[in-house]
């Protein structure tokens, strides 16, 4: 086991009466890609800000790169790279100027750590004279990642780096994160996209400020306690409504082109379901067994 680079214990954060973060604990090792997975408003941003020493927890303790963000915030800030959820670079400065500024802020230069950011910088280099505000969403995020990495941080905190980014750029972005792991950097990344969860080493599923479960993504999907059935018909909406009315239904929800359906415990009987649906005269009805995804696990834990 490697060095623990991030350690949160019993973190709590309230905004007035709203409990944004409730007794959150997790650890991230050196060179680990750790995902915080959850919908909007789950408390992910608050957790990031507490790790980055930007807000103070109401209770609980945090260590980031061996320092306490509450008392030793200067030490923490020297060792982290932080990318907030909103694009937060200077839009009126060019790509090169942004990189140059953030390098100087951390007392370094592009050439000093070029080897670390080379991958990313090469992709944005063709646009070096363009204003950051005029970049596409994907390019903006690559630039932000480059600025957050410029000083070779021990811990990289990325708050929803791929939200609003096209699928191709998202893929490229995650490939970059994978490569960073090999340099020993601990990466904490949050995302509302369940498909990205599978790319992390370990993930924490978060809902309403609480961590539901922490594990490797494949172990989470393997542990799905029910059989999952995928259904499809020409009249999808009517199908969803009928499935929800079915007496032995545990849950039914749209997922891509299918409807994911789970039977109540011990009531699993796909033949009976087929008969029920055929009785309702659905056209082109298809029923097949499916492999549960992280999202299915999330839905199951949530309900």
């Amino acid at each position, binding site marked *: 086991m490697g060095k623990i680079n991030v350690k949160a214990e019993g973190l709590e954060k309230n905004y007035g009466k709203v409990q944004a973060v409730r007794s959150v604990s997790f650890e991230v090792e050196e060179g680990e890609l750790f995902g915080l997975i959850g919908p909007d408003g789950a408390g992910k941003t608050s957790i990031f800000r507490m790790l980055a020493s930007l807000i103070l927890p109401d209770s609980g303790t945090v260590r980031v790169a061996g320092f306490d963000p509450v008392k030793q915030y200067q030490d923490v800030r020297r060792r982290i790279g932080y990318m907030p959820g909103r694009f937060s670079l200077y839009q009126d*400065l060019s790509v090169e100027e942004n990189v140059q500024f953030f390098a100087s*802020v951390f007392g370094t230069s592009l050439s000093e750590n070029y080897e670390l950011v080379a991958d990313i910088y090469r992709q944005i280099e063709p646009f070096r004279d363009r204003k950051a505000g005029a970049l596409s969403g994907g390019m903006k995020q690559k630039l932000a990642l480059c600025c957050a990495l410029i000083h070779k941080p021990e811990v990289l905190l990325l708050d929803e780096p791929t939200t609003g980014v096209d699928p191709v750029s998202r893929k490229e972005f995650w490939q970059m994160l994978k490569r960073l792991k090999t340099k020993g950097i601990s990466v904490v990344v949050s995302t509302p996209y369940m498909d990205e969860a599978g790319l992390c080493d370990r993930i924490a599923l978060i809902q309403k400020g609480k961590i539901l479960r922490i594990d490797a993504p494949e172990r989470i999907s393997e542990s799905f306690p029910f059989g999952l059935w995928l259904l499809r018909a020409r009249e999808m909406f009517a199908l969803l409504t009928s499935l929800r009315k079915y007496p032995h239904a545990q849950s039914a929800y749209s997922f891509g082109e299918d409807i994911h359906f789970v039977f109540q415990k011990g009531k699993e009987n796909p033949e009976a379901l087929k008969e029920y649906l055929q009785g309702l005269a659905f056209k082109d009805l298809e029923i097949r067994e499916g492999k549960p995804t992280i999202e299915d696990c999330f839905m199951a834990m949530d309900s």
Partner: protein
Amino acid sequence: MKRLLAFIQKEVWHILRDFRTLVVVFGLPVIQVLIFGFAIRNEVENVPVVFCDKSGDAVTQAVISKVLAGGNFVYAGNISREEAAVEVFRRGEAKAAVVFGSDFGKRYHGGESPQVQFLIDASDPNTATTIRNYLTGILKGFLKQKQEEKGLQNPMLMVPEVRMLYNESLSSAKLFVPGILVVILLVVSAMITSLSLTREKEIGTMEVLLASPLRPWTIILGKLAPYLLISFFNACVILALGFVVFNVPVKGSLGLLFAESLLFVLVALALGVFLSTTSRSQQEALMKSLFALLMPSILLSGFLFPIANMPLPLQALSTLMPARWFIVILRAIMLQGTGIEAFWQETLILAAMAVLLVAASIKKFKIRLEE
């Protein structure tokens, strides 16, 4: 130090690219000075005046032509009785009436004090006062001339000789240019720094700056330095405008004037930084600089209204206005031509304000996000 330089460079990039703000920063003061200088004046010109000449002799004729000679007054007719003046005023045909006593010429030649009455439309008291001063001046000059000719020492004819030192012609530009310089510099300087800091909060870059090892003093000095240069340049533009367009002189040392302006600009910028530490949005910062700085600076700095006439609590409040002290300094250097010995106290007060404001801003600067 390298970080500070990088920060300053970043600010310079922002400034040079934000053309609209540059136009406001440099255009606004120029427009303001021109408006104040040209439109708002205390001088009166072409005031219509009627005469009621009960004496009707050569002496009154001489006085009338003297009144009309200066260009300040124009002839608007004769009236037979002084009561008629009210009608003329009401119809708006004249703003003043000069009524000569029935034996004006006789008394004048006899060395007695001749009788004359001015009726002035005081619905605008400021203009009325100016008209009265002009008319009195003309008449006194006339009588004094006579007195000297005859070598008389008649006490009835004794006329005090008044000179308005440093602004002989009571030109309003000489009053307004230093005042406007102060108020505009204060507000524009405070506004640009407070807007630039709150802008970083609004667009989210402050979050990244906070999560970096930058110290509050680096951020604050990095904001102050480039704007110090801009505001100082602004001060020079206003001064040059006052000199070229309105003939406002600089009688004292130009170097001293620049040094004091730089000090004042620093106070104003620090004030802006201080305001921004308590504002979350640009709008809030803008409102604060307008309401907390603009109005009090105009009203309480002695720019328009004499401080000595204010009730004590307001006088006390006025001591907190940096503008109050700088106006004293400016008038001393520009109009009186005195040196630092005349206003070293005011200079010290401004210096103390600058130090206090910068220190308070660094101390108040939030090292974490505001919730």
